[in-house]
């Protein structure tokens, strides 16, 4: 079977590969990562008095999660920027209408845009492997962790990327779209934490029900659990939630190590929904007014 590239992905990769932006982007990305690496090393050294104490090596374990989190932050910062300007960029070049007159469905355009941003960023992540490998070697990690890490960062890239494309479909100006996508993405950090917090504060320690399920969509909780599982092999909910504390679904998820998978699934589903909404929004046959940019 022959794999059919989404034409937009192919084109976008061709175009960006030739622009200077990608070289500078790679440089900045690696530089930021190397800087973080050195910084963490310096801090560890401060903490552990001397290079020769046994203490020092046990501290190095944190190198991997810290660098990973730095990467996640950069990725979730860059991908929405790329996708948020994706549709307005095509509109500015007036190529968007041309795409719409072809057999590309609005969804495949939107999907292609998210994918090309994700693939672009994966290039950065892949280029960072040597630095990550160093943190593995000195931190004593397993190689398979790198693979899990790639999957996790891919998921976040898709998640934040589809939020970006959704914002892009709503706003005409790229900059507004970027701001909007950060607000929506930030909303997932903050708003998903509200229901469990509220039920904890006002519930006075009584059963908090299923309110914690909102946290399935919280990237912080996702990565906390992710690193918890990687570093200790145990879920962070380990034993903290008993049957009486929460609803049955929350209990099951926390008890049987299912949280991370369900969380990933939910994020993928929400990404898909955002892409669907973006596709609906950019479909000219759906917007009644047919607003067109005036030349």
């Amino acid at each position, binding site marked *: 079977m022959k794999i*059919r*590239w989404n*034409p937009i992905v*192919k*084109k976008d990769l*061709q*175009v960006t590969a*030739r*622009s200077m932006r990608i070289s500078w982007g790679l440089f900045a990305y690696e530089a930021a990562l190397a800087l973080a690496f050195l910084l963490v090393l310096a801090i560890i050294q401060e903490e552990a008095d001397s290079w020769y104490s046994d203490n020092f090596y046990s501290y190095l374990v944190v190198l991997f999660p810290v660098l990973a989190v730095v990467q996640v932050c950069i990725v979730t910062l860059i991908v929405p920027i790329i996708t948020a300007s994706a549709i307005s960029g095509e509109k500015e*070049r*007036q*190529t968007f*209408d*041309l*795409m*719409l*007159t*072809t*057999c*590309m*469905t609005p969804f495949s355009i939107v999907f292609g845009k998210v994918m090309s941003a994700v693939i672009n960023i994966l290039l950065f992540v892949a280029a960072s492997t040597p630095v990550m490998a160093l943190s593995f070697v000195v931190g004593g990690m397993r190689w398979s962790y790198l693979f899990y890490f790639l999957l996790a960062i891919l998921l976040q890239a898709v998640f934040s990327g589809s939020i970006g494309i959704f914002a892009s479909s709503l706003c005409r100006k790229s900059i507004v779209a970027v701001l909007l996508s950060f607000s929506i993405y930030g909303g997932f950090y903050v708003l998903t934490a509200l229901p469990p917090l509220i039920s904890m504060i006002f519930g006075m320690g009584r059963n908090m029900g299923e309110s914690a399920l909102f946290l399935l969509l919280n990237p912080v909780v996702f990565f906390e659990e992710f690193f918890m599982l990687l570093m200790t092999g145990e879920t962070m909910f380990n034993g903290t939630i008993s049957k009486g504390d929460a609803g049955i679904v929350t209990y099951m998820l926390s008890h049987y190590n299912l949280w991370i998978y369900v969380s990933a699934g939910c994020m993928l589903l929400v990404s898909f929904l955002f892409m669907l909404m973006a596709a609906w929004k950019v479909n*000219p*046959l*759906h*917007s*009644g*007014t*047919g607003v*067109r940019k005036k*030349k």
Partner: protein
Amino acid sequence: MLYINDLTKKYGSYTAVNHLTLHIPEGDLFGFVGPNGAGKTTTIRIVCGLMRANAGSVQIGNISAAVGSRKMKRLIGYVPDFFGVYDNLKVKEYMDMYGSMYGMSSRDIAKLSDDLLELVNLSDKKEVYVDTLSRGMKQRLCVARALLHNPRLLILDEPSSGLDPRARVEMKELLKNLHAMGKTIVISSHILSELSEMCTSIGIMNRGQLVTAGRIEDIMKKISGGRRIHLRVLSDMEPALRLLREQAQVRVESVRENEVIILFDGEETRLAGLLGMLLQNQVLVTDFHREEGSLESLFMQLTGGVAE
């Protein structure tokens, strides 16, 4: 081929296209004329599925599919009134991209795009970046791109605006060739004379309404300028003028040194008779022709009529 039925499009309270009904037969080279703001682009964008109409329908051939459906899009090649090109993309890759957007295999694309680039005279530019091409070349590339999926209907929105005269001529030749190859073509323009010599039929639009449409000869006959005859004589003007004034169907409009412009009301045979009469009376006629380019005046006449 293309049936537009009672199409209406409103922007807010402004009606850009007002109950437009139009039929363009297969194999026609149709000129879609109207002043700026007449609603040509709006109509074309609706046909191409880039906009939704408030009312009315569009049908192509005997295929019944919704506007904007994949089936419909395959039938249309659209050359918009802008270029739509990317930096950092080569001509070949540009064609490649649009081909794959129509779901064509890369082998088909390679073959067809070679042929098409040959046709639009860009075969030596395959490896050139699209944004470095001249306007005329970009425009021809857009035509090649629009033909890539072998559409039955090619729609061009103001294809020669912004082109220099040479590029215009090349464009015109290209369109004539395509027409000869059997494609149904629709060209919009706000300049009537540009279309009159290559189109087989035209439709004139003003303020969202179709003023008139039909075969170009028929339209020509309606033109007041069609009655206007330019006559040039070598000999003395007086006898000629005297003879002309005697004719009931003739009204002398203006007289210059040895040229006279008359308005003639009558059939073609009578007109031939008029020339014969002049010659019989020893008037040395060096030129006798119907005024051309006066499609413009028809245009003014027709569109002005709607305005009132």
